[in-house]
């Protein structure tokens, strides 16, 4: 038994070391799309190329429903899903990026409520990654961290912790990693919180009571600048609150209201808040409040999150009108009617914007054209029997464009 004990001690030692390693932030790769709206959290990727006329490269069957975006880390694509009569089977699936070969599937059981509006589903929140771990959140408020090979690192059942955290329409906020903190928004009409969670252990670093109001927006990282520490922006119907990512301490706030569906973006020292159309705020120095740069009511992102691409701000409404405005002024330069309706947000790279309608029509827009122009389209097949829709925001990596429906993960290339 002594040798067994030594062996066991060795396992414990190595496990401890690996856990300690996990606490060290791993650099994300240039081609990674590690969260909702990509590495910039603004919808664009610097190194990606959107295919002008997209064609199907590969597809992979998915076992459960989902409208969360795929994320890409290294040579892997990660997708969440929910299956079962009550969507109680929560899944994380990993595929090989180059050909869609399935690598692993993990399944847990929902510990919180799984009721949602029929259009959305339990796998609505896009997972995120720090380059070493993948963090998956479902509408049941189950939160799991896996390494890239599918080994469980930690678990939380946030409804087990906070019994009245839920939304009968479904939760949908996507978590985000800022430094060593995973920021999770579980705001709703009843027990309403935002949490800062240690990425290595899954334990709370901070917990903020938040407005008791349904909220589907996602937190957005704020870069450290002018003496202000690295932060995160928490948005709700009451406005936006900037807090220090490591501590949850308030940095500044802006009110009195903002969208509870369309999320803000931060780029070049400016925060673009979906409030009264879009309101641009200059990121303040430490201890200061933000100044309003401009407000544009005619740039209305509706329920969809805006995109910022090369000093141009794009928003699409549910009906399918894509609006381009100058990011510096909010002045609308053109509007382009696309084939909607849309639920997913636009993504961009170079001079192209990619959007996918609810009916799975992929549309590539030339952002440089004087009035905007559709460069290419691709109709993806939908499962008519289940009447599935495409509600996800696409993901970009290199020359690949990823889209998912309830039934299928698609990879499109030139």
């Amino acid at each position, binding site marked *: 038994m002594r040798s067994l004990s030594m062996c*066991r001690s060795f396992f414990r030692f190595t496990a401890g070391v690996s*856990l300690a390693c996990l606490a060290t932030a791993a650099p994300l790769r240039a081609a990674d799309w590690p969260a909702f709206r990509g590495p910039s959290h603004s919808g664009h990727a610097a190194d990606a190329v959107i295919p002008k006329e997209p064609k199907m490269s590969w597809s992979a069957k998915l076992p459960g429903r989902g409208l969360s975006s795929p994320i890409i880390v290294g040579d892997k694509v990660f997708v969440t899903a929910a299956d*079962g009569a009550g969507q109680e089977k929560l899944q994380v699936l990993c595929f090989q990026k180059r050909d869609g070969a399935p690598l692993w599937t993990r399944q847990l*059981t929902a510990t919180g409520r799984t009721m949602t509006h029929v259009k959305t589903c339990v796998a609505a929140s896009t997972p995120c990654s720090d380059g070493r771990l993948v963090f998956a959140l479902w509408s049941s408020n189950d939160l799991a961290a896996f390494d890239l090979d599918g080994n469980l*690192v*930690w*678990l*939380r*059942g946030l409804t087990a912790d906070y019994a009245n955290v839920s939304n009968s329409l479904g939760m949908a906020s996507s978590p985000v990693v800022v430094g060593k903190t995973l920021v999770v928004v579980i705001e709703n009409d009843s027990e309403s919180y935002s949490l800062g969670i240690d990425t290595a252990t899954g*334990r709370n670093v901070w917990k903020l009571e938040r407005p008791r109001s349904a909220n589907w927006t996602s937190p957005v990282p704020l870069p450290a600048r002018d003496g202000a520490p690295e932060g995160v922006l928490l948005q709700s119907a009451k406005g936006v609150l900037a807090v220090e990512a490591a501590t949850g301490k308030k940095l500044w706030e802006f009110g009195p209201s903002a969208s509870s569906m369309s999320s803000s973006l931060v780029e070049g020292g400016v925060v673009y808040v979906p409030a009264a159309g879009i309101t641009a705020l200059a990121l303040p120095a430490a201890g200061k409040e933000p100044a309003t740069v401009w407000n544009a009511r005619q740039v209305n992102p509706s329920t969809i999150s805006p995109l910022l691409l090369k000093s141009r701000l794009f928003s699409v409404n549910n009906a399918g009108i894509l609006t381009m405005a100058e990011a510096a002024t909010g002045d609308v330069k053109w509007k382009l009617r696309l084939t909607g309706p849309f639920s997913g947000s636009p993504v961009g790279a170079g001079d192209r914007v990619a959007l996918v309608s609810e009916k799975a029509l992929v549309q590539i827009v030339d952002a440089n054209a004087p009035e905007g122009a559709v460069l290419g389209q691709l109709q993806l097949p939908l499962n008519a029997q289940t009447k599935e829709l495409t509600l996800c925001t696409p993901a970009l990596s290199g020359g690949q464009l990823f889209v998912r429906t309830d039934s299928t993960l698609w990879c499109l290339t030139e």
Partner: protein
Amino acid sequence: MKATLLLSFLLLGTLPGLSGADVQEDIRRLTQVGPEGAGNEAASEAWKNVAGAGPGALALVLGQTGKTGAVADNWLRLAGNVIVDRALKSGGKLPLAELETFVRETANLDAARLLAFDLLAQADPAKAKALELTLTDDPVQALRRGAVAHLISAAAALEGEAAKKAYQDALRVVRDEDQTKAVAEALRKMGETVDLPKHFGFITRWDIIGPFDNTERKGFDAQFGPEKDRAMASKYEGKTGKVSWKQYESTDEYGKIDFNKPLTPLKDATAYAMASFESHEEREVELRLGCKNAWKVWVNGVLLFGRDEYHRGQRMDQYKLKCRMRQGANTILVKCCQNEQTESWTAEWEFQLRVCDSTGTALLSSSSLFDGLKPDSKPNR
């Protein structure tokens, strides 16, 4: 879990470098996770050992599942998930027969049986499917569902009396709303009567009182007469004057108690509904509630749960409230608040509540609050 089964299942030779006792200790660590991530560090370390212990650890994983909580169960489930995954990829032998036996043994805990079934389905989908078709009367609803789906499909392929009998057989075991609806519709087309409120166990006869105030949505936290007065008076001071209990019986197929009918459509209002449930024995039950208004539920004066949410959606069995009924009369009190919204989709001020076991099988009260009462008499509490 029976010791003999556990021993036959436990293949210590497949535990690489660890003894069964070591794995047991690691599994214990998985079950020690607590609120807000307490114990995660130790569990994370232990999980690797359990997941790496091979198929021989599955018996121990199953043996602890269902004993300490749903979050701990997921740690165990994911360990089992990975053990099977690795065995499949490496060509390792999995204890399929033992998993099947474990599922069939209904004395095992529900969560453990469900995990055993899912692991079997992961390892051998055809074997799991064949097993599932035999689980028509299973106490675990998620296991029963597949067998019932098969019964419904088989009935649909029949005609005449054979079809009717097949649907009647299905009605005996069906529990989920969607499947029950399909069976009921088929039987009604054949001229059969189906009592859905009875099938589900909805309480349809209540005493109702209101309105009390809910201006600025303060009624949810406010304690009005019916929830603070254990003796229950016949009249209380309401929002606009004295209010008294009224008998109300719902004819809705899904037991919806619509306060807009007895109290008229109101806003900023709170109402209560009370029913007596006569239980033959002291036992665990589930009160299953559907409600799109803010609500609270008490049983015998003890608050079970409440939720301050308005008009986000309602469905049958939206909330499952476990409680222990005593033998004899049990008082169920429901508080239901309507808010200030005026959109057409905010008109509903209602709830539906049924009493059942964990499978969803209806438990019917052996008497009613209304029994033996004159229409205008005060209910006997």
